């Protein structure tokens, strides 16, 4: 048998935004004082979904598009765990679209870090749900005709409790957003992380994002639904980044009477003696 050499190094292209996201993630975990033994990283499939393998944490690397229900099951079984979903735009906004919608509605305490590079990488360059109109690929040969998914607007509309956007090229901003996500206790967090794909997206490059991202001003009130929606729909010459929306809804797990007596896993162990 010809056995290809195995490699424990990240399977990402040189220059991929994922490297920086990984570095910032580790910094944010340290800054938030998280106990990594209680940290569970859940992902689906794609290049971003390999992320959990390259840091120190418990890992549930599941099926394409199904990270959110798996994360939901983990959080319900043991709500003392910090459950973070880290996956790409194709996995989260495409294949897992129905789960995304209903996870926002459910508002369970799962933190979603979506590496959004507006293109499919692992399958080699097809359109993603967030590709801009007219984006040409070997499959979308005449350019994308589908209206792009607006993940932040969807999250706000369906009641996600904390909605944020950042850019992999702004380390301090991204770290601050991740720390805010870790500190949030009110339910589902969406952190959409804009990130260049150096191999397959020649349009939305590092520079393209860099010239467009604009931190939301101090004046923005994240509890103002209409103002948040307006920012969430903003795309093109100026792309707002920062804390876009806070719904103030109670988390799903905080509304389960059964969980008032502790985690399910703790209750099982108590009953089993």
């Amino acid at each position, binding site marked *: 048998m010809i056995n290809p050499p195995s490699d424990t190094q990240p399977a990402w292209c040189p220059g991929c935004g994922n490297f920086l996201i990984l570095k910032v993630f580790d910094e944010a975990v340290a800054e938030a004082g998280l106990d990594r033994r*209680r940290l569970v990283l859940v992902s689906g499939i794609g290049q971003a979904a390999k992320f959990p393998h390259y840091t120190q944490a418990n890992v*549930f690397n599941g099926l394409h598009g199904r990270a959110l229900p*798996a994360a939901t099951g*983990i959080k319900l*079984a043991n709500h003392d765990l910090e459950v973070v979903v880290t996956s790409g735009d194709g996995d989260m906004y495409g294949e897992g679209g*129905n789960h995304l919608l209903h996870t926002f509605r459910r508002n369970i305490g799962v933190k979603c870090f979506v590496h959004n590079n507006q293109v499919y990488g692992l399958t080699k360059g097809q359109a993603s749900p967030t590709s801009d109109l007219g984006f040409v690929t070997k499959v979308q040969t005449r350019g994308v005709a589908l209206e792009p998914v607006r993940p932040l607007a969807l999250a706000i509309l369906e009641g996600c409790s904390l909605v944020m956007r950042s850019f992999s090229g702004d380390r301090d901003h991204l770290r601050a957003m991740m720390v805010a996500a870790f500190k949030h206790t009110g339910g589902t967090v969406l952190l959409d992380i804009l990130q260049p794909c150096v191999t397959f997206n020649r349009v939305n490059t590092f520079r393209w994002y860099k010239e467009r991202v604009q931190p939301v001003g101090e004046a923005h009130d994240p509890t103002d639904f209409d103002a948040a929606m307006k920012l969430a729909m903003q795309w093109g010459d100026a792309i707002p980044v920062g804390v876009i929306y806070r719904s103030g809804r109670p988390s799903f797990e905080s509304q389960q009477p059964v969980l008032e007596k502790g985690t399910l*896993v703790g209750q099982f162990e108590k*009953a089993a003696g």
Partner: protein
Amino acid sequence: MTTDLLIRVAGEAGQGVQTTGNLLVAALARMGLHVFAIKSYLSRIRGGLNWFDVRIGNATVYGGRESADVLVALTPAALDTLRPHVAEGGAIVFDADPGAADAPGGCLCVPLAAIAKETGGSAVMANAVATGAVFGLLGYDLSALTAYFAEAFRNKGDETVRANVACAEAGAQRLGGAAGGIEAPQPGGEPVSVASGTDAVGLGAATAGVKLVTAYPMTPATGVLTYLAGAADDYGIVVEQAEDEMAAINMVCGAVYAGVPALTMTSGGGFALMAEGLSLAGMHELPVVVILAQRPGPATGLPTRTAQQDLLFALHAGHGEFPRAIFAPGTPEQAYHLTRRALVIAHRFQTPVILMTDQYLADLVMDTPPLEATPKPIDRYLVAAGDDYVRYAVTDSGVSPRAAPGGQGFVLLDSDAHTADGHITEDLEAHLDQQDKRMRKVDGLTQKALAPDRYGRPDADLLLLCWGSTYGPCREAVDRLRAAGQKVAMLHFAQVWPLKPGAVRRAVGLEGDDARPPGRIVCVEGNQTSQFRTVLREAGVGVEAEPLVRYDGLPFTGEDIAERVQA
């Protein structure tokens, strides 16, 4: 055969057919009669034609039959459709004023709704009048029915109890002594306890310590979801309706990874959507249990009817090769115990287990010894992860020590091919090590496999094979054929995968010291292609059988099997 009698209550959906049937079951079982009940219903909320059969006897009744001794018809359509299926000498109770010009002939006309309104103040109590009328017709004393009303309507107040009792008495008075030649089993003895397949599965799951239940509603699996939602506070269960079946099985994967027993339930179409998740459970080595309540397909098929058509599908669902076990209970009592066993085996071998029921088993109510309701949590076979813990240590048995996240060591699962520590790999040797490790669990699963149960004569010339819910009708067929002088026996497979070939061959009579090969073997099952015969071949059992199949959406009956096997 002992005396048995079948009461059929028929009307439109929403008319109280089920309520009347439930009243009859509860009251008759209290009187020490053995009861078997099954409903036949349509996929609609109002209207149509539904019926509820209550068959009673002096010994355990294992199935239904086509002919009714007493038909209670609440609508002209019910009368027209079911009249031809009333046994000779049987009685028909029809909801009409006997003095009305259009009162049908040959019926015992009782204005059920009118009496209910007059006596109880509401037409809703027509079911109490109907039940009373049947009791009167059969010459049964009303005391058990009265006691049931007192208990069931305690929270609704004395007035409700009194009104229902009065309605039942009025109904009984109308038909007292009208039975004619109908021979009714004599009540007596201790109350008989009964259970439905649905409730037995639910209680089995709750007492085994299931902590998360999630499903997308689908007939005929929804009953278990509803049961567990009702039991959630008592047993400390979170019940969540998932957005789809993919979400349901992936939530279960997440929950069992985190350390709690969890399960989901669905029917064929939903199970198809779960196939990828089932494969994930195989790869992740997670103790996932799926209750697959079958109905006829393909596609949407007949949502409220029964079938055993998904056996080969359950056996082969999911891409790739991974171990699994499949159980198929025959009675509510077995359903209770096998739900627990499904969870135990899943945890012992860290692999998916499927419990196959169907509309018939889910809905039927029959004699069942009282089922233990006290929680008795299963063993999860978990270890505590130390600093050097790896999830997929290669072992002889194929079972690696399993830990839940949150302890000292990290627990890593990957749906990709992975190394022993759970990291993604494309190293083909590591992949082979893990694939072989997983498949070694088949040996352990096979050793733990349940042998088929034998019923009937040890020196049988004719052997019937069946699995799952066909147990009851097959058993009645054996009794009928034996009464007719045939040397007959049956084997019931409550576990259909894996099979232990030697144990099956011994049970059939092909091996062992007392081997006595039957002259004829017939495989009785609810599908068109006799799928269990394929399973027997796939398992290398070396038993060939003739098929006897039914796939019209209705369950087998003992009469049906006995007649066809002799034809």
